């Protein structure tokens, strides 16, 4: 590091006014009280704005008997990893969904409620998991793809 006193970081450090910034930060947080620690209502804030993650295009729930019996595996991936699911169809309906491979950057339990939702709704249209949208997207798309295979040639 340049120690002549002319280095860019020294000019920036002088301009920074770290002391004032720190005092302002403490005052702002203290002034709000414990409410300052509450995350914003992320989903509400993202409604209708460009911050909302792209929701994968999903087909409406299929009528009972729509799918061919069997187990269908498929996967989806995005920048943060990939997910493989196995969807089991019995008597034309979604009987169970299992996550058979989890290679996401993020922990798997963020989406652990989703397989049951697929069964309950007979659809890949599961609830958005706030703060785990990448995992949620991969899961939903993988299920959607598996269901597409199950519905082929019907």
């Amino acid at each position, binding site marked *: 590091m340049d120690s002549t006193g002319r280095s860019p970081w020294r000019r*920036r450090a002088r301009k920074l006014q770290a002391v004032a910034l720190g005092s302002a930060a*403490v005052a702002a947080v203290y002034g709000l009280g414990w409410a300052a620690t509450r995350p914003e209502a992320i989903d509400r*804030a993202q409604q209708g704005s460009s911050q909302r993650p792209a929701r994968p295009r999903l087909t409406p729930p299929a009528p009972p008997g729509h799918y061919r019996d069997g187990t269908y595996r498929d996967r989806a991936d995005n920048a943060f990893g990939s997910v493989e699911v196995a969807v089991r169809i019995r008597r034309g309906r979604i009987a169970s969904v299992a996550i058979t491979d989890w290679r996401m950057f993020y922990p798997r339990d963020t989406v652990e409620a989703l397989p049951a939702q697929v069964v309950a709704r007979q659809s890949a249209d599961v609830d958005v998991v706030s703060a785990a949208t990448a995992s949620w997207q991969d899961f939903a798309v993988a299920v959607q793809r598996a269901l597409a295979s199950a519905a082929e040639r019907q």
Partner: protein
Amino acid sequence: MTPAWVGSGGGPAAQAPPVPPADRPSWVQVWMDTIVTIGLAVPAAGAARFDAAVQRAFGWFGRVEAVCSRFDRDSEVRRLVSHVGEPVRVSPLLRETLQLGLALAGATGGAFDPTIGGLLEARGFDRDYRTGARVSSGLESPARTSFRDVHLDPKASTVTIDRPLLLDLGALAKGLAVDLAARDLAAAPGGVVEAGGDCVVWGRPADGRGWRVGVRHPRRAGQLVAVLGIGEGAVCTAGDYARRPAAGAQGHHIVDPRRGGAPTAVASATVVAPTAMVADALSTAATVLGPVDGPRLLTDCAVDGLLVTGDLHLAVTPGLDRLLLGPVSL
């Protein structure tokens, strides 16, 4: 970071443990992997009426930890970094903490860098003190991340990160919690909040004289390098003796974000500033910058400080003289 010994009266050679004298009521709890001590300059008989305020003050540590802990998968900061490439709304606390952290990072050319979490984790600082469990974010290639990958929009209160990374707000968060706790106790005529090397004092000690804050010798247990007279404000020391990484790894808990290794030139860096948040962050930055540029940074930021080098030399800011009570002894 466990250096500052706080005491009033007595001489600089007094015994070292950070326990206020018996005539001053004190409360101790464990938060943020360290011991938090609150001492108030009120008669012991009148201490009970401060109990509620003291519990509330301790509560800030839990609140700040729930937002800022990189060990807690459910903390706000961990949930934030699970979104790459999209703006995420953040709480005012996280926004303010990150704003200061990113500003300091820019001003120090990355000597202070809040994206150092991945490097720390890779070096073995990966245990949640509350459970003892190893925590892993699953992050890969942490060395390539820097504060330039984090974009804060203060008006919208959103943060966007460009790539997977792990934020470590440890230095700022502990300081902030100490600052907030002290504010909750401002009604007391004087007091001290101390947490693992960060301490804030205000008012006057029970004996009516000013606060004396001892700076621990980085190599000789129980010995003080200097005693500082502080009217009101924060003193923080970052020291290479405070924490060590997991077995096998070299160095200590402060990592040079620019190079990856633990800086060796500085054994401890003490900073006096109006807030513990700034004092803690600047003591970390000064440790990384070393005995020449460290004090320069402190002077540029209009704070004072004292660095002890690994070979036990002293580097101080020009203004430190005003704060010293008695000679410096190495």
